[in-house]
């Protein structure tokens, strides 16, 4: 199985006036060709910064402090900016929660899409326009030829997100990083986008990193799940293994918080407290103050351990399969 992406020991820190925010702190995972990784976590867990680090869009005061991001064998953290530009939008693409982050409101869709094609391919404008039209058709936009000459504000939210996905697909990238792309959409529209993305990933062999807070979305979409908490991956494994028998108490708590996992009208199995501030986070397991299994041993940083074949968790007191 060839790896599209391998992240090793990634640390992205933000050097603010108030102190160092370790947004991503020793994160490792890999994505094989044609596979979908669900990167799950709550606000401030570092899941988006992980995505931005891969595509090289971390702005000061943030920077990648250490670690490797191997994209088809090449370390992106050491790549000169010009070579990174050649990859970005070409071999690696990103889709954002708000499609207007991708789209320029004062340019027509065709202008923006042709520009993207010509940035990385030596083709005529006509050929570029034809590729743009095909991409719009591929993501299920009706009458793509006419829609090409529309402006972004003439599209609905769901259609804008389809355009953003079409732009990401223009160069048939090896890797797409999708950061909460369906969170702002209505359920029926979200269902449509998920269906398109799933079909496209299967057809083109593109690897996908799907960043979300919603376990239910990745349950149906992803092959593997990495759960992040306070800048670290706390659990990683195949989707069904992680969701059916979570090892880390935080993963178990997250699953317990999903209403459909509980009897109707019964109290939800809530996680007490709230996510800690990443500013000057003390050493040790960041979840220990909310964890009912915590012991003094948790004041030392728990290492990522393989607890079962293909199952990794960062916990000294993992749940046994029978307890989950």
């Amino acid at each position, binding site marked *: 199985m060839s790896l599209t992406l391998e992240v090793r020991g990634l640390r992205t820190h933000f050097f603010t006036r108030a102190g160092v925010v370790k947004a991503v702190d020793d994160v490792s995972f890999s994505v094989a060709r044609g596979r979908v990784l669900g990167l799950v976590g709550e606000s401030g867990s570092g899941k988006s910064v992980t995505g931005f680090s891969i595509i090289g869009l971390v702005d000061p005061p943030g920077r990648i402090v250490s670690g490797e991001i191997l994209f088809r064998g090449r370390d992106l953290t050491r790549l000169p900016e010009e070579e990174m530009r050649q990859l970005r939008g070409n071999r690696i693409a990103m889709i954002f929660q708000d499609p207007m982050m991708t789209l320029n409101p004062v340019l027509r869709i065709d202008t923006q899409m042709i520009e993207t094609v010509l940035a990385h391919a030596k083709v005529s404008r006509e050929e570029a326009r034809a590729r743009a039209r095909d991409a719009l058709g591929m993501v299920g936009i009706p009458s793509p030829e006419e829609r090409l000459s529309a402006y972004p504000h003439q599209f*609905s939210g769901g259609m804008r997100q389809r355009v953003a996905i079409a732009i990401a697909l223009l160069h048939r990238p090896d890797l797409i990083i999708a950061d909460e792309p369906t969170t702002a959409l209505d359920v*029926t529209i979200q269902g449509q986008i*998920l269906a398109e993305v799933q079909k496209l990933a299967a057809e083109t062999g593109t690897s996908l990193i799907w960043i979300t807070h919603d376990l239910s979305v990745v349950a149906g979409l992803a092959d593997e799940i990495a759960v992040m908490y306070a800048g670290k991956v706390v659990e990683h494994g195949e989707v069904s293994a992680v969701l059916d028998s979570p090892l880390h108490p935080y993963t178990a708590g*997250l699953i317990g918080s999903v209403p*459909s996992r509980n009897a109707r009208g019964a109290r939800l199995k809530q996680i007490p407290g*709230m996510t800690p501030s990443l500013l000057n986070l003390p050493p040790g397991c960041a979840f220990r103050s909310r964890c009912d299994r915590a012991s003094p041993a948790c004041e030392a940083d728990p290492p990522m351990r393989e607890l079962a074949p293909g199952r990794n968790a960062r916990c000294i007191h993992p749940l046994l399969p029978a307890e989950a």
Partner: protein
Amino acid sequence: MSAAREPIFELRGVSKRFEKRLDVAGRIARSLGAKLRDEVVHAVDGVDLTIGRGEVVGLVGESGCGKSTLGRMVAGILPLSAGEIRRNGVVIARAGGAPEADAAVLREAKLKTQMIFQDPYASLTPRMRVADIVGEAPLVHGIVGRSDLDSYVDEQFRRAGLDPSLKRRYPHQFSGGQRQRIGIARALAVQPDFLVCDEAVAALDVSIQAQILNLFLDLRRDLDLTYLFISHDLGVVEHLSDRVVIMYLGRVVEEADTETVFRRANHPYTRSLLDSVPRIEARKRAFHPVRGEIPSPLNPPPGCHFHPRCPHAIPRCREERPALREIAPGHRSACHLNEAA
């Protein structure tokens, strides 16, 4: 279940139209032959709804279906364009005419109906201390005297799961989940018996969302509250509600107890909505979404609003608005196919 309860709210033919009249330039352009007209949005279009005392009614729908507008009319902060709303049998809001209740009853009715909003960042005054945010209304309405205010506010804080020692702080010093608790404490401080929760947990992280949902469940039990719980999240609604009302483009398309809606949904829109919901129990699976977009409420399709997206549409659906009819005890659905069968 609802039949046995004494109704607290009864809505009859409630509608809300938002009109945008043409400005002077537009009127001149029209007189010169431009195809311009006043824009009218039927945000809520002839809704009948009864809410029993002690019930939790989930109001579900996608963007632009009118669920928030309906909630605001129930809460008494938006006037009606048509129809009437009764509370405890007395008309408290009526389109175009004076309600039959006198001023004191109306004030009481408004006070007893409180609203919890979606955005915990926008719904709290940033320059007031949270103790004043929570304490202002009960003081003004004479629910508590100035001498007892301090302990009264402490009690409201504790009930919403907040530490009263934080009450001298300002809203920006709290996290999203804590702010939502402040919003809940503020609503409960005037001792309501009815809460309209408009997407009250939508902006919160999953683990915090679970905490707030548990708070709602506890408060319902302790204070005997009735909820109109507005949400686009079917998982949340299924968990919390006794009865579910589904809206699409301003109209109620289906209404039944929660069990029925989630097990034996009748309306094609409800069914496709349920199919679209990602479920944590699902594993790598093909998504089969409903086709088409949600039409603009400015220009909804004629007949049944759902017919352009409906896999079972018949010619009649294009012409005639289906009535909301009882198809089983306590189960109402607005679909022509129920009569064809």
